[in-house]
């Protein structure tokens, strides 16, 4: 589903963020990108949702070269990708429900349809009582759940999460991971950039380690999760 061929990314004047990355990620995989700060995790994610373009190399998503997309194409691509960030990136003026529904509305779902979808998702994620709350009145864990609901409201083929548990305590981080696993069950490919070794050990089925922009390791393992089948 995702193919990277000799991808390089250099920031001016001469900072090498990614160095000859070649990878293949299949549909439905649950991948952890790990490595120390500055290893290139966030840069790699940014390349995947076309926030940035590689200096060299090609990235194919479902066989499509995403570097060749025009602006309209990038918008279309992002409608198929769910994004979750450490700092949540929710609109403070909108309610939890409106934040989630916004993502559905931009793909052309009607107002009622978007709100219904958003309501069901928030209920599923345990935020039934909070759907009219504004993000700043919610706890960090609750805000992250709203962000996750927004990321999956359009049933994306790919979910990218950049340090999604960075601002959460251990218990909530664990809960967030279980949500990602649940989302994966729908067939969504999930890539999480994280340096939380505890979580990686417990949940990672494929762990790609980056160091100084290189792929240092690419491990695949079979993991049994509590509560999972």
């Amino acid at each position, binding site marked *: 589903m995702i193919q990277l061929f000799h991808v390089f990314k250099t920031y001016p004047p001469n900072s090498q963020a990614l160095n000859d990355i070649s990878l293949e990620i299949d549909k439905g995989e649950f991948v952890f990108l790990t490595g120390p700060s500055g290893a290139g995790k966030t840069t790699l994610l940014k390349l995947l949702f076309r926030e940035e373009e590689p200096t060299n190399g090609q990235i194919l998503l479902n066989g499509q070269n995403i570097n060749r997309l025009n602006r309209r194409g990038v918008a279309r691509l992002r409608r198929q990708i769910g*994004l979750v960030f450490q700092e949540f990136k929710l609109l403070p003026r909108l309610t939890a429900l409106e934040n989630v529904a916004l993502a559905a509305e931009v793909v052309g779902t009607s107002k009622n349809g978007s709100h219904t979808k958003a309501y069901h998702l928030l209920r599923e994620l345990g935020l039934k009582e909070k759907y009219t709350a504004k993000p700043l009145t919610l706890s960090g864990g609750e805000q992250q759940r709203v962000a996750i609901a927004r990321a999956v409201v359009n049933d994306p083929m790919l979910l990218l999460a950049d340090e999604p548990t960075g601002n959460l305590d251990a218990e909530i981080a664990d809960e967030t991971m279980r949500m990602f696993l649940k989302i994966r069950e729908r067939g969504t490919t999930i890539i999480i950039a994280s340096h939380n070794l505890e979580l990686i050990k417990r949940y990672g089925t494929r762990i790609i380690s980056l160091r100084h922009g290189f792929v240092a390791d690419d491990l695949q393992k079979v993991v049994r999760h509590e509560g999972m089948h």
Partner: protein
Amino acid sequence: MKLAPLGFVVRRVRNNLWELPWTHVLTAATMATTLFVFGAFMLLQENLQNLLKAWGEQIQVNAYLDKSLDAADVQRLLARVRTFPEVEGVRHISQEQAWRDFQAALGAQSGVLEGLPQDVLPASFEIKIRENFRDGPMIEDFVNRLKREKGIALVEYPQEWVDRLSLVVLAVQWVKWIFGGALFLATFFIVESTVKLALLARRDEIEIMQLVGASEAMIQAPFVVEGMIQGIAGATLSILGLWFTFQWLRNEIPTFGLLGPFSQFHFLNARHIALMLAIGWLLGAAGSLFSLRRFIKTW
């Protein structure tokens, strides 16, 4: 650019106006202030133009007739003069009329005319010039052609006055375009900077819209519509401000020095008010669009 869904845009605009009232009020107020200056210039320029037109209407050429002409000759000459393209109207002043006018002009001193023959003053034509020909060289050319007409003894016109007026009209035209253009540009840049500041506070919103895959049209349309509303609101405020200032000046300053009584000045007409609203609308939309272009990252 594909059009954004109307319902989506209307909802976003309504919510934004409701939730960020002060941002919109401040932007509209800035637009109102700059458009007030622009409108004041337009008001001044329009009234000055009207004043010059009124002065121009007072320009007349006097053609004195040969005393030897009989009534039929005078009628023929009158018909001939009316065919000149420069002529808006001709009034025939007979010798008797000229005598009566002169007596009336002298008023209490008219006794000094006693003993003089009543045909001492020549008959004449008072010729009004069309607006397009009230220019020094054009009048001069007309006067020269008139002088060559048989039966016309002498032609007089206020040459110095005409030349000065032509110069003032020309100056006003130039000032109108140069100052008006500069003022329009200044208004545009002030509006654009204000909109940019307002957008700066909402850059997260733009970024998030981009991240969830909103099309350019969906991101820009609400901002542009909000800009249009701010522009029209600003223009309306500036027109109201101008109207109140105009009324206040009319009450406080009854005469305007050499320019005459204030009562002869008029407020902006419907065409100018529509123009102000259109400029506000356009500035709001263009200001938003230009500022957005800088905010929306090039993918």
